[in-house]
């Protein structure tokens, strides 16, 4: 079960000709795929394209009606390899993932399908996780398009343009026998907007037609001599065909003013930001009627030489707005102009940031600098309203704290790292090789655990160099998502084969949690269309690990013992600890409604949560340094004599018990308590509690009376 249910959105996939689709960009793409008569869709979840996967997972019925096969692929490589179906057959297929990380994983298969070439349209939808909020290395997918010679689409970020470009993408792919990449930036994936829908199209040629009448063409297989032929084909046939199609159907747009000796070339995805910057500079309006000519690249690879030359010819300077680095487009445009002996100056990174997201501010500034130098008559007429003085802003910046992402309230991964911290107190620090997933938050305060992360599922491989005889073992972390993605072979198999003596901790929370709680092989949930409940332990033992321990993460004491044992045992060979507990986000999503229902229906329900006594808490905050749970926070010390704020468990507490377990395992302080609230108590409950409160109350009154004899009056 994914983090979000898309029941409503799924209905939108049925919209027919003329109806208006309202929703997220990435969901619009899903509808566009069905409108384009796609036969198969695959991919691997990850922001910002997770919702595409989630909605299709919930849309089995509609997909069935349309003969569309959907796979939640095991990895981006599996997804890319799916495109093989379009090599021999007129089948339209689409795959999707988070880029550039996903494209890295997929690139082997991508390079092969790009070499073979395709008969049916093959579309690769890459969700660009670049800039603000990104969780990965900052790179460009552009390079992958260039190296394998796949075409790269970068449409204007409005639903109509995006949807249109999906359809065009398939046509372009078929016209040029080349897989096409559709690049969508994170904001475009999440943009809410609308477009006018078309009917869904049922593919004429179906997958079963291919399976029942297979055809083959050995010249499509990447093996000598064909591989050499493919390279030439790319240049002589496919490239020109692509250029013709892009020109003929005007995929790139000439917008804004038509005259003037300056102009702007912009990646389609940045067009809206550019127009806003021009609006602020008084050079455009809300409808994009810019005073400056704009060449909008909805296709950023390949470039169309004639269009570039035509646009630049009558201009003395052109601003090129290209996000990220290296500046491939700027270099290409310069060489096109040079070869044509056109003297137009191309101004790009000279006035724009070399690295980082091109925000409104960055582009506004860049345009300003460009105009000031090359078109002073247009230079900023109207500056934006004054914002706070810089020193004033600095003063604020000095106190506004960083808010790194962290483990959720009650997260079952937190206690694993609490235990690790405690073990380090006992046996000294050790090297920790991290992986991709929520568990990577361990590198941040309060845990500060972890040295490197080498990619999804590569946690243990990242520690494989440490095979030396040493007085301390290394620990590697891997999530269940990464484990099934490739960690089983790249990590566990690798460690067994090379006789590693180090330790792996697999965080088994039952989902691919970081990407939105999708099911995976080892998920406990029953899933109609997928095979779940395949235990990780069985797989690990299956590849030959002898030392395997399964621990419930919330039992910090045991977690600590097992980890210490793994680190200190004289037994040689790879050691795997499987730390199990369900992702709390998903668990709450599942249990809360059930619990509320039960309470409504008058059934007896016990809800646990935790608290801290402010009069025994001395404000040292060791507990917070060991846990960092969002609901474990601080408040003013009620004791007027004490200086430091006391710990406090706020009402978001989900009763995981980690704080209390920590207090125990670390011998912290007696301030923590576990409270159980009973809803719809039984007669026995009520009776017992009556007796208790009567007796306890009697003694407490005694104490109150005794204290009253020494009362200083109000509040004493």
């Amino acid at each position, binding site marked *: 079960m994914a983090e979000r249910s898309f029941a409503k959105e799924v209905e939108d996939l049925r919209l027919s000709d003329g109806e208006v689709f309202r929703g997220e960009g990435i969901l619009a793409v899903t509808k566009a795929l069905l409108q384009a008569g796609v036969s198969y869709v695959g991919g691997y979840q990850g922001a910002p394209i997770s919702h595409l996967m989630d909605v299709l997972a919930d849309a089995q019925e509609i997909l069935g009606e349309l003969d569309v096969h959907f796979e939640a692929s095991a990895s981006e490589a599996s997804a890319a390899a799916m495109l093989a179906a379009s090599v021999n057959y007129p089948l339209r297929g689409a795959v999707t993932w988070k880029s550039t990380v996903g494209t890295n994983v997929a690139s082997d298969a991508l390079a092969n399908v790009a070499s073979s070439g395709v008969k049916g349209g093959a579309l690769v939808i890459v969700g660009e996780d670049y800039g603000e909020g990104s*969780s990965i290395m900052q790179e460009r997918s552009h390079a992958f398009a260039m190296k394998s010679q796949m075409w790269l689409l970068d449409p204007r970020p409005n639903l109509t343009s995006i949807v249109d470009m999906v359809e065009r993408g398939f046509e372009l792919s078929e016209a040029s026998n080349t897989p096409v990449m559709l690049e969508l930036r994170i904001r475009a994936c999440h943009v809410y907007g609308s477009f006018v829908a078309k009917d869904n199209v049922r593919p004429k040629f179906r997958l079963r037609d291919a399976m029942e009448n297979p055809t083959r063409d050995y010249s499509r297989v990447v093996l000598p001599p064909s591989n050499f032929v493919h390279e030439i084909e790319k240049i002589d046939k496919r490239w020109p065909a692509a250029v013709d199609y892009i020109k003929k159907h005007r995929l790139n747009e000439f917008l804004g003013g038509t005259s003037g000796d300056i102009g702007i070339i912009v990646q389609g995805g940045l067009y809206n930001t550019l127009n806003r910057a021009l609006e602020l500079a008084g050079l455009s309006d809300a409808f994009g009627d810019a005073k400056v000519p704009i060449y909008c690249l909805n296709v950023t690879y390949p470039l169309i030489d004639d269009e570039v030359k035509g646009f630049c010819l009558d201009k003395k300077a052109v601003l090129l707005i290209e996000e990220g680095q290296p500046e491939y487009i700027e270099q290409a445009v310069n060489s096109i102009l040079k070869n044509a002996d056109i003297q137009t100056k191309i101004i790009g990174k000279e006035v724009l940031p070399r690295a980082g997201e091109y925000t409104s501010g960055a582009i506004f500034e860049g345009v300003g600098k460009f105009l000031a130098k090359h078109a002073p008559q247009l230079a900023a007429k109207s500056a934006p309203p004054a914002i706070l003085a810089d020193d004033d802003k600095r003063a604020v910046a000095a106190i506004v704290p960083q808010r790194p992402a962290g483990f959720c309230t009650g997260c079952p991964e937190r206690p694993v790292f609490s235990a690790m911290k405690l073990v380090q107190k006992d046996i000294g620090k050790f090297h920790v090789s991290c992986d991709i997933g929520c568990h990577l938050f361990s590198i941040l305060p309060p845990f500060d655990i972890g040295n490197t992360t080498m990619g999804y599922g590569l946690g243990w491989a990242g520690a494989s160099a440490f095979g030396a005889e040493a007085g301390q073992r290394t620990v590697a972390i891997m999530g269940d998502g990464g484990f099934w993605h490739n960690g089983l072979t790249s990590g566990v198999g690798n460690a067994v084969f090379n006789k590693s003596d180090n330790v792996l901790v697999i965080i088994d929370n039952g989902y691919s949690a970081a990407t939105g709680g999708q099911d995976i092989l080892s998920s406990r949930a029953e899933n109609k269309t997928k095979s779940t409940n395949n235990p990780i332990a069985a797989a690990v033992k299956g590849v030959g690990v002898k030392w395997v321990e399964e621990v419930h993460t919330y039992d910090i004491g045991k977690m600590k013992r097992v980890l210490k044992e793994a680190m200190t045992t004289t037994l040689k060979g790879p050691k795997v600890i499987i730390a199990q507990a369900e992702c709390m986000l998903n668990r709450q999503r599942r249990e809360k409604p059930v619990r509320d229902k039960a309470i409504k229906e008058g059934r007896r329900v016990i809800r646990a949560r935790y608290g801290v006594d402010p009069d025994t808490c001395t404000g040292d905050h060791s507990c917070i340094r060991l846990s960092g749970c*969002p609901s474990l926070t601080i408040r003013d010390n009620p004791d*007027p004599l004490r200086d430091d704020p006391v710990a406090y468990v706020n009402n978001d507490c989900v009763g995981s018990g980690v704080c209390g377990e920590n207090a125990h395992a670390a011998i912290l302080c007696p301030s923590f308590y576990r409270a159980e609230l009973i809803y719809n108590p039984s007669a026995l409950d009520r009776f017992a509690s009556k007796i208790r409160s009567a007796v306890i109350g009697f003694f407490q009154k005694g104490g109150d009376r005794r204290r009253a004899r020494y*009362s200083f009056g109000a509040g004493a």
Partner: protein
Amino acid sequence: MNPRAIKIAVMALGGQGGGVLASWIVKAGENAGYIAQSTSVPGVAQRTGATIYYIELFPKEAAAAKGKAPILALMPAPGDVDVVIAAEMMEAGRAIMRGFVSGGTTLISSTHRVYAIAEKIAMGEGRQDAESIRAAADRAARQCVWLDMDQLAEDAGAVISAVMFGALAGSGATPLPRSAFEETIRTTGRAVERNLKGFSFGYDAATAAAKEKPPEQPAQVAEPKIAPAVRPLVQRLQTLPSGVRDIAYKGVKKVVDFQDVRYAELYLDRLQYMVASDRLKGGDAAFYKLSKAVAKYLALWMAYDDVVRVADLKTRSSRFARFRDDVRAADGQIVRVWEFMHPRIEEICDLMPPALARALLKSNGARKAFGMVLGKGRRVATTNLGGFFMLNAMASLKFMRRGSFRYGVEQARIENWLSLIASAAERDYALACEIAGLQRLIKGYGDTHERGLASYEAIIGVLDAVKASAAPAQNLARLRDSALKDEEGVALAAELSKYGVGRAVAA
């Protein structure tokens, strides 16, 4: 004037429902005849990080008149945001940092704090003062609306996004009618009643805040009824300088509550001695800074935390009332409570006669035996009779305290500390105050207490060297702060090394 979009930025933390709010604003805009667009960059930021949601609303008829769709931006531009809604006070600060709050902006911000991890993990007070955000915002924005939206949500039993939604409507920052907002909540069909309540709370509070804040009523102070048993103490308090009296009053209260009147007499004896020497050192001019410090820290030290104290506090009726309140128990709802206790042989020895305690602490056998019996952490059910009586019995051991090992140890430490203060006061008043403040390092239980005490003693160990240094008071303060920097004592070790002391850094 060309038609332009209404631009709204929502600054929220993961889990605060910023996404929900954004989608509500979109719907409200569409209800009121606007073309709406919203974007965000959730991803990992959703996991407790700070996220910005951005909405643009463009009048439909303007687009119709032009016969073209407007081009709406996917992110806020500095100086070009009409409304900023911050779900937490520091996030308002973040909006200012990013340049979203400008002369044209209405800032609607909650005044409550969600402390960042950096503020929480400090070994003492690590919280940033958000009030300066308010000042900067009032300078920067066209209009500011400050509300404790968290409290309002709590009161209404609604999600905070409902309150923010209401505050947006109430602020009048957009031309959207109230009906367009409320209609949106109704059409969600989820928790409608509660969220409408939250909405109206936000709406009313914002309309009020957008006008003038009512002056706060001074709280009524009840006439204290002083029990005869403690009257003599109160009379003695009257003899203290007025500046010291108030804090000494709190100190006496604490010490009586910890032990008894006789113990409070001892507290006052010690304090009055200090006040006397303070007066000689011209304490008047310094407003008795030293006496105040001693009055405060002496009380804290004398009321040290031991098992008796903990058991006493855990079993009081006032505590039972408080935890019911903290866990939001409904009236009459049954609440059961378990304490997490991990007594070590040290804690038990604290209560024993000195000789016996020392013997036990030395013997490994005792340690082992004890470890087997009480070694693991125990959960004590205070709301059950068994657990309650166990703690109650422990609390009643108060009478043994004076004869106990721990009592002797603590009194000796206190006397030593006081003499250090007194002798320092002879020459360096400021230094004496700093020595008094060192008590702050000693707090907590078990490992925490041992760590604090070790830091204190390490610093006292270099006191003479500090006295000989250029600026003793400042240097001692630096030592104290370094002790509060990190658990491993790395910072403190570094400071100490300046005085030629190599201190093993705890792992």
